[in-house]
């Protein structure tokens, strides 16, 4: 049974929708003084907000727009990252990376990671948000605990996870053994089948708090009277969630999905600390962010010829991919939101 949201009976100011004034108030007529000064003032005076925008625009242009354009320019040359820029090679680096098995393997791992996080955030994180949406004395403490991993240093977090998962000095395996789950013990990060799953779990743990907070904000915008109306109409709890609450969460769903997509494909710090520059074991956990870093600076650190311009080409490709897919996601999910409302 599909339960439609009831139409709103009141306007935002609390007056009934039929209480509107018969005619909208006429816009104020500019005085003669205002008309004259508008023609004599300079463009800067006519649009004073430009002064306020200028610092941000300068910063944005200097630290984002210019480097992006410059990066694309550099990707067309041979450059090790040190010394003068080498020969013009056109789109050769882009061709190379599209033929590179390592690039596609890393892209596949990033894609798998996003898929897992997407499912996790729309099941576990959403479930947690639903639980935290209930009023209880401990709610604020639970929220703080769940959000904590988002604000913790990724490097510190990574080191803590490494130590916990280590098969010799870690606590995960002994705890599993002591609670009777010894059959679950394994070399979490060295096992080729489990290394990527471990990375997925750690990433899910890290970003869970963000999704919970966003969904919680969305849940608090769902009017209680809608849910009550649906229940009075005979809807069960699950039906109320599916047909009333979840559709109303569409804006939060859009934000969570797009943000997760960008964060996961750009993920570097925590994964680098966890699996190293080579995506141990044997590239099983190599993701795009770590691949780009390795190509830029060399995976060994003693490489005499790092492929900086090739790494920049990878970065430009990632930028174009993220921009394109994010725009598509925003457009599709935006249309979904409009359809729902």
């Amino acid at each position: 049974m599909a339960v439609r949201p009831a139409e709103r009976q009141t306007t935002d100011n609390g007056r009934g929708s039929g209480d509107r004034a018969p005619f909208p108030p006429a816009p104020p007529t500019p005085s003669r003084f205002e008309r004259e000064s508008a023609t004599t003032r300079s463009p800067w005076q006519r649009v004073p907000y430009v002064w306020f925008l200028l610092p941000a625009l300068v910063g944005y242009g200097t630290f984002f727009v210019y480097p992006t354009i410059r990066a694309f320019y550099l990707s067309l040359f041979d450059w090790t990252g040190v010394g003068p820029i080498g020969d013009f090679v056109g789109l050769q680096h882009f061709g190379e990376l599209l033929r590179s098995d390592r690039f596609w393997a890393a892209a596949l791992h990033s894609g798998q990671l996003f898929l897992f996080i997407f499912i996790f955030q729309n099941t576990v994180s959403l479930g947690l948000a639903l639980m935290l949406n209930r009023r209880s004395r401990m709610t604020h403490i639970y929220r703080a605990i769940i959000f904590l991993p988002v604000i913790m240093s990724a490097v510190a977090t990574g080191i803590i996870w490494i130590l916990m998962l280590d098969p010799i000095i870690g606590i995960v395996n002994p705890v599993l053994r002591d609670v009777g789950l010894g059959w679950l013990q394994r070399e979490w990060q060295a096992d080729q089948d489990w290394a990527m799953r471990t990375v997925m779990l750690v990433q899910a743990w890290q970003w869970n708090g963000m999704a919970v907070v966003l969904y919680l904000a969305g849940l608090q915008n769902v009017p209680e009277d809608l849910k009550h109306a649906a229940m009075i109409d005979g809807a069960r709890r699950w039906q109320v969630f599916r047909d009333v609450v979840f559709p109303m969460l569409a804006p939060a769903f859009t934000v969570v999905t797009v943000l997760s997509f960008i964060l996961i494909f750009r993920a570097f710090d925590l994964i680098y600390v966890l699996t190293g520059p080579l995506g141990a074991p044997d590239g099983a956990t190599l993701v795009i962010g770590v691949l780009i870093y390795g190509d830029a600076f060399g995976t060994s650190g003693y490489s005499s010829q790092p492929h900086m311009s090739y790494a920049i080409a990878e970065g430009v490709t990632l930028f174009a991919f993220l921009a394109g897919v994010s725009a598509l996601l925003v457009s599709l999910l935006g249309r979904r939101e409009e359809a729902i409302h």
Partner: protein
Amino acid sequence: MTRAKRLSHARLDRRRLLRGVGGAAALAALDQTGFTIGASAQDAVTITMWGNHPEWRDPMLEILAAFEEANPGITVEFTAIPGPDYPAKLQTAVAGGAPSDVLGALEGSILTQVAAGGELPFIDLTGKVDVSGLTDTARGQVEVEGKVYGTPLASYTVGLAYQKPIFAEHGLEPPTTWQELKDAAQTLQDAGVTPIVLGAKDWVHPYFMYIGLASAVMGPEGFDQLRAGERKLTDPDLVEAAQLLLDLQPFYQSGFQATDYVTAKAIFANGQGAMQVAGTADFSGYREVNPEADLGFMAWPGPEAGKYSTNTGMELLYTVSRFATPEAQEAATKLVAWLATEEAQQLVSDKIALPVHTGITGSSDPIRQETVAARGLDVIVWYDLPETNKTTDAASESQGGLWTGRLTAQQFAEEMQASIVPSAGAATPTA
């Protein structure tokens, strides 16, 4: 007029803004010329210097204090950067024109950068730094085509570190052949001890293990043949070295593929393993983790008795940044020249690592004495030379394949061989 009113009347017009910007620009210009208000021309110079061993920070400060005492007016601001982060930080800083004044180039990199041509990030110090007292290997790293660019801070020798109490408890002596190494590892494993602690998440441990075993096969002459293209890592006796790396896999600790260099060192220092590939510099780290650790050092066992080997390389090669101000360059040159002296090298030998000056034969540190005594067929660390510099990249990318079965020992050796660029002759001195 109240303060609030005064503020409301204070308009930031363009003229006032330009006046402010102009003033700031003038001050900035004065700063560029080195002229500062209220300061004299005799001001002290402060120079920056980066190191890649945080565990050496305190002894380095002591060494630099000796320099500052001998050179009043020069202050050295020393920053220790973790080793794995150092190459990326240095590269980014050089690309941005902002490395430290005393520029610590990576071993082998002066040779490769001079050979590559183009503008160098360091300056020519010929006639300003006396390298005549340095060992041939050390001089070979900083003297290229008749020009001197600096001095290595120190050298290190890589072999196997071992836990003396564990060896004593199981009645073991340091092995001298591959068979003895395997037997010792088996004895330890049977007794429930992890024989070898390896950090294979990074390239460092597997790389040094491989070049140690392969160097034991070749010796210095064989290595020169390898550089000249007369010998190949795919020769059957050298493939055996890669095979041994693989055969020892059951003796590495659980989860070694995902264990990083630092964690592996901590595991070993705490006595949770009996042996580990280690260089001179590693012992400071071991002591930091476990001051009580009773460790010994041995050369790499060879395929047969008497063919044991070690690898010797250089710590950072200190040069002078071309991006530094003339005053800083002058002060930095004094420091680099001092680092090459017998006085500085004795301090290096006593406090941090092996000296590069031929005049220094002793050290107050017993483990450094033991390292020097253990040197066998000593071969230079491979990545120090242009012909074998890229072997680190090859090892990085292929060592994981050995553990997962993606590569056989033969295929691993082929990958390593493919990274070697043979030269016409071995012109650069080896260890």
